[in-house]
């Protein structure tokens, strides 16, 4: 069986385990790792090979060196497919890889069949398509929360990659990385529960109400663009067309009207719950459970009730 390359982003994310699970249905799974690798974890989900690229260029320069590494590996092992995460970086590597190999690519897949045909979400969740690459091998980026990761133990062989990175790959240099404290909450785009607040939350201080409910449910916090633009919550938590796309098991919208651009980022959520004082708010059109009421009374009451259970 041919190899299927799974490109791993730093830290082995949930989407990595999902890709390993999908890849097992397509061929022998090989993980490609940049820098340190949690080889044990990759093996646990079925990677029989782990390729490690540790050239410092990969760390110090944006994307281009990673694409060079993957392209050279593709030329070497002729894999059946390459899977990457549908994150900004994953898509960017995929884009460069497609150009280098003169090959098609598919982004935002929620499933990939054994033959490389992918199911993709289009128009911000208002439809899906089945597509395939018609030039070259399937290069597919996979969205988080697409499949349930399932373990399948393997004992991976680790191979160090020795790839020469060209000067033009080193043009974009990272001069500083600043970590901002984000507490213990799960990563927004991968969380299985997301609690979001909108303009109805009123001000930044009130967002603690949103955070409290998120923490009780073990979820991540999100925000509408109106909440972000009003300075209630940082931009990195914005959900929607110009923010993050989330697809959790549960999405709770508090004081959010449900504008089409907000829906764009959350309408593929499995269960949607909304609290809004306007019975006509469009968010109710997609809510599985909606409470017409003031979030400042409904949310604390719900939180108390949850604490009691």
């Amino acid at each position, binding site marked *: 069986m041919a190899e299927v390359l799974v490109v791993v982003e730093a830290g082995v994310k949930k989407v990595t385990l999902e890709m390993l699970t999908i890849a097992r249905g397509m061929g022998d799974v090989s993980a490609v790792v940049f820098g340190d690798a949690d080889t044990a974890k990759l093996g646990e989900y079925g990677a029989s090979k782990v390729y490690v690229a540790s050239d410092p260029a990969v760390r110090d320069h944006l994307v281009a060196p990673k694409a060079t590494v993957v392209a050279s590996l593709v030329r070497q092992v002729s894999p059946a497919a390459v899977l990457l995460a549908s994150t900004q970086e994953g898509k960017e590597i995929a884009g460069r890889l*497609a150009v280098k190999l003169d090959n098609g*690519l598919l982004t935002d897949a929620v499933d990939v069949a054994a033959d490389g045909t992918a199911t993709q979400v289009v128009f911000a969740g208002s439809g899906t398509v089945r597509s395939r690459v018609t030039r070259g091998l399937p290069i597919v980026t996979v969205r988080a929360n697409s499949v349930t990761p399932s373990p399948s133990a393997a004992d991976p062989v680790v191979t160090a990659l020795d790839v020469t990175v060209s000067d033009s790959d080193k043009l*974009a240099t990272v001069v*500083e990385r600043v970590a*901002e404290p984000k507490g213990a909450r799960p990563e927004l785009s991968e969380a299985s529960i997301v609690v979001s607040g909108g303009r109805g939350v009123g001000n930044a201080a009130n967002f603690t109400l949103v955070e409290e409910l998120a923490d009780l449910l073990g979820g991540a916090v999100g925000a509408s663009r109106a909440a972000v633009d009003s300075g209630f919550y940082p931009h990195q938590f914005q959900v929607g067309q*110009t923010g993050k796309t989330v697809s959790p098991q549960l999405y709770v919208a508090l004081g959010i009207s449900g504008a089409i651009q907000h829906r764009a980022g959350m309408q593929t959520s499995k269960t949607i719950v909304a609290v809004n004082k306007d019975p006509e708010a469009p968010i109710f059109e997609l809510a599985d459970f*909606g409470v017409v009421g003031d979030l400042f009374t409904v949310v604390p009451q719900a939180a108390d009730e949850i604490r009691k259970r």
Partner: protein
Amino acid sequence: MNIVVLVKQVPDSGAARTLGADLTVERASAGNVINEMDEYAIEEALKLKEAYGGTVTVLTMGPAHAAESIRKALAMGPDEAVHVTDEALAGSCAVNTSTVLAAALRTVNADLVLCGAESTDGRVQVMPHMLAERLGIAALTGARKLTVDGARLTVERQTDEGYEVVTAPTPAVVSVWDTINEPRYPSFKGIMAAKKKPVRTVSIADLGLTPEEPTSAVLEFSPRPPRSAGTKVVDDGAGGTQLAGYLAAGKFV
């Protein structure tokens, strides 16, 4: 500093969108607009021109009616435009689009190529890196801040962990996020002036290219079944308790 801004015309994301009978994005119908993020790229280009001089050129690949979006873009202030349009480009995939845009970029002399971080129709986020790869220059993507110091560009970009500062020499491609600025509205004077600004229309043959088969194909499209509205309760003092009950029944607590 000579700047090229990539502007794509897209179906209005505020309206229902669909695929046509040929399973490519339906672009003929009314309600096409400038891809929102590209307006931020235009604004950034104009600010740089105001600070450092030079020219701002709009580059669009799209059908004939994309000309409307080009005029709208020019009304904001750019000097001129290049419109790549060709029957053979209908339904073009990202890979082939990048071949065409790269070829068009080679015909202009740009120190900086500015574009949106992503388009609302495809949301593929791949164009800046594809172009950089083809042109052998750097790509700095998702900028929320851009500073120019002679021939050196520095951007600040948000990451999941916080943010990072990345630098590259010109020429380079920089894609911008909607946090970078506040795009201006075209003035009446701007709209009038735009009518007279030069727009060069080019075919792929003019760029020395021949038509290529798309590198990927859609086999089937299924609109998402509308979500059936669920239970809606009006809070009469027990709304929070009912909400907690619903979450408990769904095993979320």
